[in-house]
């Protein structure tokens, strides 16, 4: 395993602590999972350097799950920066992507496919037993799984049409969610030339489309990037409902368009207090980082440029700072700013792009 100090960083950030996991490398082939100590600027490469991507911290902040290429496909690995370990999961299928941690940090969900099963399934890996299980029953074409931290939202689902809900299996799904936990995922629906995507609620044996329960014409739109808040009480997602890509929030009050702008809005990331979302938008021309107060849909700029892009925002655990990628120096590098956009500071300055930053949660 590769585990070495690459470079001491440019600037130390007084008062700021914590670790940011990110991806860096000259080309995609050599992208490597690395961690940056915010207080000292030290950078350590901890991944395989083989198309590493999609880093995700465990809820307790001790481990990082990520995807990495191996000779036969793509696998999920779990690295522990402090212990200096980096272990692969044992997979049933060749291709495994986009890991997501269960709320208790004992399971990982990801999408998988193989030669014999070209449409992706959701698999759940039990880190205690090493057993990998297909979730969603027979449903295929599922991807981008994320765990619901609680089943609060499930309990609140109470569609007007109870018969339809019964037919869709909602009540059985609620019972299974209480017992095993529950995932949300994006599922492909329809047939060419009119395929679309829906948000699915996924349990071990069931996969039920969520929005058709609440929006009769949901099938007309293509959803992406479903993101539950940290308490599992509201869900952000993208949809092209409204003519362009917008951010919506589904909560107890219904579904609200919180980004509402003719330019595209992408990639919602909840703050730790579940009040704000950081996201990407083209409302000022180039791709920039913004934040929105979910309860009012008031949008504020965080990081934008006239002739460069800013993207991939993630919140510090205390919600005071946002880390993001900026192209303002020519090569994409990590920057951080206060949540109101002030005090922007460059964090990385290596020779290669620094991408996909995720801030370590508070260690428990």
């Amino acid at each position, binding site marked *: 395993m590769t585990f070495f100090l690459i470079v001491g960083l440019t600037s130390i950030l007084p008062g700021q602590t914590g670790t940011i996991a990110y991806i860096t490398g*000259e080309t995609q082939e050599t992208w490597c999972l690395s961690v940056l100590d915010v207080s000292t600027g030290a950078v350590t490469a901890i991944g395989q350097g083989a*198309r590493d991507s999609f880093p995700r911290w465990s809820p307790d902040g001790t481990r990082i799950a990520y995807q990495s290429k191996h000779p036969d496909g793509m696998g999920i690995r779990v690295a522990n920066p402090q212990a200096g370990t980096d272990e692969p999961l044992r997979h049933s299928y060749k291709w495994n*992507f986009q890991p997501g941690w269960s709320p208790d940090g004992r399971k990982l969900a990801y999408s998988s496919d193989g030669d014999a099963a070209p449409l992706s399934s959701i698999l759940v890996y039990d880190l205690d037993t090493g057993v990998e299980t297909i979730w969603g029953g027979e449903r295929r074409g599922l*991807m981008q799984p994320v765990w619901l931290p609680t089943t609060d939202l499930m309990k609140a689902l109470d569609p007007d049409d109870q018969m339809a809900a019964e037919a869709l299996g909602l009540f059985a799904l609620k019972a299974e969610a209480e017992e095993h936990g529950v995932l949300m995922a994006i599922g492909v629906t329809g047939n060419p*030339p009119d395929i679309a995507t829906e948000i699915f609620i996924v349990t071990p044996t069931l996969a039920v489309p969520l929005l058709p329960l609440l929006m009769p014409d949901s099938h007309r739109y293509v959803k*992406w990037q479903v993101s539950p808040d940290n308490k599992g009480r509201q869900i952000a997602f993208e949809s092209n409902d409204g003519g362009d890509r917008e951010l919506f929030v589904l909560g107890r009050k219904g579904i609200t368009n919180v980004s509402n702008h003719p330019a595209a809005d992408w990639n919602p990331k909840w703050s730790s207090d579940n009040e704000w979302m950081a996201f990407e938008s083209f409302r000022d*021309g180039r*791709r920039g980082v913004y934040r929105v107060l979910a309860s009012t849909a008031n949008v504020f700029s965080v990081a934008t440029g006239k*002739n460069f892009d800013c993207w991939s925002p993630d919140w510090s655990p205390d919600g005071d700072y946002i880390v993001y990628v900026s192209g303002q*120096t020519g090569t994409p590098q990590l920057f951080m700013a206060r949540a109101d956009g002030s005090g922007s500071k460059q964090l990385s300055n290596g020779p290669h792009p620094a991408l996909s930053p995720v801030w370590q949660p508070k260690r428990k």
Partner: protein
Amino acid sequence: MRFAGIFSIALATVCLMCAFATAREADGTLGLIQTPNNGVPALITPGGRFEARLSEKATLTLTKDGNLWPLVTEWTHLPGGFAQARCNTQGNLPPGTYALHAVTGDAQDCNVRAVFVLTAIPDSYLIAHITDTHIGSTRHPREAASIMNDIIAAANKSEAAFALITGDLTENGSPEQFRRFLEVLDTCILPTFVVPGNHDRTSRNYEQFFGPRTYVFQFGVDGYLGYDTKDFLIADELGPQDGLLHYYRRQIRASRWSVGFTHRYDLMMGMRAQLILFVDDPLDYLLYGHYHREADEQDGIPWGRTRIIMTPAAINGQMRFIQVDAQGLHMQETVHAASTLHEQEDN
């Protein structure tokens, strides 16, 4: 005035010398001038404007047949220390193919076939689609570059307005293969727009020879968006491409036809790119290669509106012409323009 005259003569002398002495770097990679170049040229009408990206500010001139046309430039700083020039041309600029020259205090550069001046840009025109040239491949008895020579010759004989060359330019992306590709490319009398394919991804060689992997250009009423194919396994969703795709897609939104050209389409390619190009604001057409065959019923973009034109591989001696008019893009039958046998067996 006298100073200006002397300066012009000196500049002309330097540029003429440069035309023979310096084109790109000695190893064929891009130097002072990044774009336009012979893989990403500028198409204008006399008096038109184009943008040039350089590693630093320079005096810019167009040359053709030993004649010089100075450019009036407005400069903008770009991230990474690059400089962008908005280049204004003279209204009496004769139609034809121009080299772009750049001179600074201590450097000079020349990009041949970088700027094409057209009398007018027609609403109805022909384009040549060439893909998968695989320079360096030994899969056939005949050398790949020799096969590409015949393909380019066929394009030269046509009435095509420009050629789109959609990736797998080389067999393994080595600098030597890119240099050989450039040699053949420069026999083309048409403007040639290239994008990389999966065989061209060795290190950053493609960028060093051609610059941007993602770019957009307007040809009259039609907009063309070239981009690097990202299939799911190597999706560049972390990097800058998705932002550029959306930014450029918006720029050609008002076009009569919005045409994407890339190396490959696969349903498992990066999802964000698919949302941008085929779902939220669908391109009208996507041109690609990669599969070395004609499209069949299984091919297509399942999101709805974007129609595909897939062309067999140039390495197998094939190419295609596409007629563009108010009714759409009309692909013609595949042209078998080159033999893959040994030179002496060609007949």
